[in-house]
């Protein structure tokens, strides 16, 4: 007579087998141990491509140069030369196809990122020419008077 003692074990083995069959169908074939070993390299290799194929949105000033070379060479002669076009003009993506027109950030807050004066003796921030946003023409857009492409105070647009 066969012993019945092992019956529960058969059930367990059945469940494990079922799990392995499901695993064969569900788990991508590229899932496994990769170069970094089991601790850090246990993953689906195909996912790397997902991250590599993310759309590049910021194309750098080099990309702008071909069509907008004039503006670029203009700003290159000012202290604002260090600022990338896209920091204010927005990511180019596939401009001029997509988007046809970039949404330019002309807000006061954009200028204040650097030009709101902070009294920090040990930081370069205090060395940038800055204003107190509460007192300096509060509520008015900076570009009403200042030209970001010609930031020199000698070339103010409106009334002094």
């Amino acid at each position, binding site marked *: 007579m066969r012993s019945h003692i092992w019956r529960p074990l058969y059930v367990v083995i059945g469940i*494990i087998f079922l799990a*392995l069959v499901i*695993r*064969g169908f569900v*788990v991508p*074939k590229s*899932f*496994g*141990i*990769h*170069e*970094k*070993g*089991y*601790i*850090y*390299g*246990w*993953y*689906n290799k195909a*996912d*790397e491509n*997902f*991250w*590599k*194929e*993310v*759309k*590049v*949105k*910021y194309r*750098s000033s080099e990309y702008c140069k071909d069509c907008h070379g004039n503006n670029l060479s203009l700003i290159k002669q000012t202290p604002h030369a*260090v*600022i*990338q076009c*896209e*920091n204010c003009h*927005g*990511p180019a993506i596939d401009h001029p196809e997509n988007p046809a027109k970039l949404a330019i950030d002309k807000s006061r*807050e954009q200028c*204040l*990122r*650097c030009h*709101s004066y*902070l*009294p*920090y*003796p*040990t*930081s*370069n*921030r205090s060395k*940038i020419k800055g204003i107190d*946003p509460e007192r300096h023409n509060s509520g008015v857009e900076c570009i009403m008077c200042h030209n970001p492409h010609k930031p020199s105070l000698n070339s103010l647009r409106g009334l002094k």
Partner: protein
Amino acid sequence: MITRRDFIKYSMQGIAITAIPFTAMELLKPSGLLAAKDIKKIRWGFLVDTRKCVGCGMCVKACQLENEIPCDANVSRTWVERYVLLKDGRVLADSPKAARDGFISSSIEMGHGKYEDVKKEDIEKAFFVPKLCNQCENPPCVQVCPVGATYQTTDGVVLVDRKWCIGCGYCVMACPYGARFFHPVHHTAEKCNFCYHRITKGLKTACVQACPFGARLIGNINDPNDEVGRIIRTERVSVLKDEFGTKPQVYYLGLSKEVI
């Protein structure tokens, strides 16, 4: 004509396919078994020069747009911290909305919607510290992921598999740097990946490109001619929280002891 490399590749694939019925055993295989022969010796490293940062937050804004993190979400892949040390010895620090709008006001966010005004005369020193994922050599977040949804690539970047992540939050808890969070749209673990889509195309990360002051640099630190690698090797750099043994690969110049 089959080259040796192809031969190895095909036989590996053959082994992998025949091993599918034995997937349970595969889990227990020693780690080095599948190690490929031709790992390109790239190791991405990052250098932050805190002395150059002015807290404009352009990097945060660029990062959020480049990596499709909604701007109104109160999480970010990278952020900038402000430290203000007062003459009475107190240290105040904040990072309002991860500094996506920069630091416009001199009052410090204290939580519970409160702000503390700081007078110019009280300040001993003040500085900004940009932060991002450290792409640790021993990433604790990868170690604790129960399903293998986060992993380290051969070039040292830690990525998250959005299709496999179960959203348990264990990796978020395991990161000593607070670099991880849940993506507000995809609801999976999310973090900085050094703009993997950009660096693998030879571009700089969005934050490096957007920084007007050169406070952020990225490079292949294994390359003897690389600027970042050179600075790390020859200058006095430090890393954040090295006591955890994570071996972070974001190096800092001009870090102060108050920075945590």
